[in-house]
């Protein structure tokens, strides 16, 4: 399908491994394209490589990580940039809301200032104006008593409030591309709904969100990429993926949702250093595997889906 919208981010054949005593293959041959206005959710279980993928794109991984492949933002190669060039993009153009509402903020600075800081650093705003704008942003996320709480420290916030304040911080500089890592982890149903509303109220921003919460992914995204054991196994438009999942892992994941009866197939993802499981990583758990699955399947295009499974050859 030809997409006329602008390509903001192109990830090509990205792999990440951690060498050393414990070899870990965290991400394997992932390719993604994010267009302006997209709302992409990356879903999958813990340890499937979703968070590492985001960090690798932003070049925020430690030097022990071995990253191969390419990432370009608006046609510019992020991996070839100097740190200084990169700093002009990170924060100002692409912002990142880290995982864990507890440690994403500086405990020694007032929340209002922290939400204002990206506007001061990247948009050249004066502190007073930026802090006033920060209060407006907090209001958009319905934190309540915003003028007062903007002058408070993060510890006075509940987890759900901090999470929404972090998103406010993430969008404050007007970055066109917002990365969010597990923004709903540990929040209760009401707070998950408020976070979804906050995302859905974003205008003109492109979202790439990592989550393990399927209902949340469904409520905020237009497209979903499913990861399993460092591999991208399926990608499709959100409603299509939930109505008509193709990859056996995606099907099993949907069947395991509480509202679908918590049904599951026994087995676990292979260990990260398991280089012995050649071929499809899901084959040891899959109900439909064949001899062919000992070879790694490519991504097949079926209708609007991309799916890494030999059934669709």
């Amino acid at each position: 399908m030809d997409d006329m919208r602008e390509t903001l981010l192109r990830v090509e054949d990205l792999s990440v491994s951690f060498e050393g005593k414990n070899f870990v293959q965290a991400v394997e041959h992932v390719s993604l394209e994010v267009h302006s206005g997209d709302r992409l959710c990356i879903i999958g279980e813990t340890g499937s490589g979703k968070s590492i993928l985001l960090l690798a794109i932003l070049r925020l991984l430690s030097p022990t990580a071995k990253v191969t492949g390419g990432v370009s933002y608006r046609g510019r190669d992020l991996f070839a940039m100097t740190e200084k060039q990169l700093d002009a993009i990170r924060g100002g153009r692409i912002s990142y809301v880290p995982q864990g509402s507890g440690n994403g903020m500086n405990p020694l600075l007032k929340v209002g200032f922290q939400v204002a800081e990206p506007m001061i650093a990247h948009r050249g705003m004066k502190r007073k104006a930026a802090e006033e704008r920060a209060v407006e942003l907090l209001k958009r996320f319905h934190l309540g008593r915003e003028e007062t709480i903007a002058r408070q420290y993060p510890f006075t916030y509940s987890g759900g409030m901090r999470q929404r304040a972090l998103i406010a911080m993430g969008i404050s500089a007007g970055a066109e591309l917002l990365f969010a890592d597990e923004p709903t982890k540990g929040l209760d149903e009401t707070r998950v709904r408020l976070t979804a509303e906050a995302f859905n109220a974003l205008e003109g921003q492109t979202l790439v969100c990592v989550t393990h919460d399927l209902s949340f992914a469904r409520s905020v995204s237009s497209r979903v990429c499913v990861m399993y054991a460092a591999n991208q196994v399926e990608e499709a438009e959100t409603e299509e993926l939930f109505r008509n999942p193709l990859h056996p892992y995606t099907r099993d994941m949907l069947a395991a949702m509480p509202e679908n009866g918590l049904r599951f197939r026994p087995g676990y993802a292979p260990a990260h250093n398991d280089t012995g499981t050649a071929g499809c990583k899901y084959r040891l758990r899959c109900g439909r595997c064949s001899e062919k699955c000992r070879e790694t399947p490519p991504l097949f295009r079926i209708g609007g889906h991309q799916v890494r499974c030999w059934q669709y050859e």
Partner: protein
Amino acid sequence: MNEAILEACGLTKRFRSKEEGKRSFTAVKKASLSLFPGETLGLLGESGSGKSTLGQMLVGLIRPDEGTILFRGQPLAYPFKGAPREKIQILFQHPEVSFNPQLTLRQSLSEPFRIRGLPLSDGVLAECISRFGLYPEHLERRPGALSGGELQRAALARILVMEPEVILLDEPTSMLDVITQAQIVDFLRRYQEERGTSYLFITHSTSLARQVCHRIVRIRAGELQEEEKELVP
């Protein structure tokens, strides 16, 4: 009628405000409940409703300001000692902080064996974790090198060494993916059928509670509500 294994009678917990002149905050108000052998009782509430505070009083992690806790009909004094301390276990919401970050999984998992004076060997430890899909190579890792799902399964393996009669499950799957959640829930269900263990299942997810619990009570602003019979099939 069966006798309750764990009972709360009028438990109240107040937290003093750090700021002077501010009144104390009552997290749990006169909560009474009974947990029977072999049942899963769901405690459903939003964040801040007091469900974790109530749970933590019931397993002896925090001291109640008022009320009593009975284990097999006997009142318990804080801190718990002896059998109640061993037989009442807890599985926390955050697996990544349930383990000492400086110890390898082998060291952390050896602890309950030592406490109970059970023989310890590589084979015993490997068996302890293998039913949770963990491999011997995991034993040499520290918590930082394991995923949340792996750690939560290891945490469950660790508490089961104590052969608990009551397990407090404090949002045990809210940080996990759906398949790991379904696996842990299924394992707990089979373990309960086999051993008659009782669970107090704390959650904010109505859909999960509905699938897992025999009875459900809701807690709002520290007060227990009527049992919600229509939620359970």
